[in-house]
């Protein structure tokens, strides 16, 4: 977008222009980083296992990090692409796998809560769309006394 002509005289002014532009953007960016980074709840590595044809139950996995100074409580999940969604936990007891719904999940300050295969997952029930690797699906996480958080989950072929 910005072209720099090669004449030495204009080069200096172009540099100055670029610099001032960077400075103008840099300051608010810096402010934004300083304000939002330490006090936040972040969601990362969100993915959904690609559905075999006809599958009516899918699982989403992600990581929630509570960078706030207070405990947060995940109360549910929803998605326009599914009829319903629930917070689920798989437990292994004496070689028997059990999947159970959990109503809410407290995440303490500084805690990194992972949803992984064989552990916690977000159960996505009755898809309204084709769930194909490469696409993304929007998930909305609901918290008690806290604004919803939206995340784009990548559809991937399960490992």
């Amino acid at each position, binding site marked *: 977008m910005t072209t720099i002509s090669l004449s030495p005289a204009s080069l200096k002014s172009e540099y100055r222009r670029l610099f001032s532009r960077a400075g103008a953007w840099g300051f608010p960016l810096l402010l934004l980083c300083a304000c939002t980074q330490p006090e936040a709840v972040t969601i990362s590595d969100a993915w959904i296992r690609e559905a*075999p044809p006809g599958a009516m139950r899918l*699982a989403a996995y992600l990581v929630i990090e509570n960078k706030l100074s207070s405990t947060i409580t995940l109360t549910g999940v929803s998605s326009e692409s599914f009829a319903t969604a629930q917070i689920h936990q798989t437990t292994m007891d004496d070689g*028997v796998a*059990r999947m159970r719904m959990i109503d809410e999940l407290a995440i303490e300050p500084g805690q990194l809560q992972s949803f992984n295969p064989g552990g916690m997952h977000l159960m996505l029930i009755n898809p309204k769309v084709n769930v194909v690797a490469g696409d993304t699906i929007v998930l909305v996480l609901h918290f008690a006394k806290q604004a919803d958080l939206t995340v784009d989950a990548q559809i991937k072929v399960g490992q």
Partner: protein
Amino acid sequence: MPFPAKSPLILLTAVIALIGGIVAARFLISTERVSPEPVNATWLRAPRPLPEFELLSHSGQVFNKESLAGNWSILFFGFTNCPDVCPTTLGTLNRVVGEIVARGNRQPRVVFVSVDPMRDSVEKMAAYVPYFNSGFIGLTGDLADLQTLTRELGVAVSYSPLESAVADGEQQNYTVDHSTALFLVDPDGRLNGIFGAPHITEQIVDDYLIITGQS
């Protein structure tokens, strides 16, 4: 007191006998164990014949004990409404058979048996099972036939409702608690080994090749 005088000799004899015994035992054990032991799997030295059963394969054909002939089979029990453990295990089994073939051996038959025959129709199984590997076979059928198999193999199966009704009219919102073990059946329809969780591809491949006597 004659006893203390004799004791050093007795002690020496005992020590020599003990060392000799250990050496002999070591020698005997090491020559006896010609075949390596499985790392993780349970190896049934006396293979146990499966009971007679009759289920339907995902292509709609009768699949019974005789259908297990001609190749080694790995049996896994699960259901298609299981979004976490079952696809993970079927993905692992796909890598297992890939590795067995890569090491120059014949691909075993992988059989996914539905523990949820009420919801898992032949059509459902036909859409679901080959997704993981086109060679995998899905089985469903009558609950009674399924139970013949699960009881004999010691597969725990129980049905448990999932709380909070699903809004869109699907009433059968329950989950199935089930054993995640993999069962290794020989070409004569006899149980030879059990792979317990966690399922680690390399360990399953190694143990499979040991139990089936391949390399």
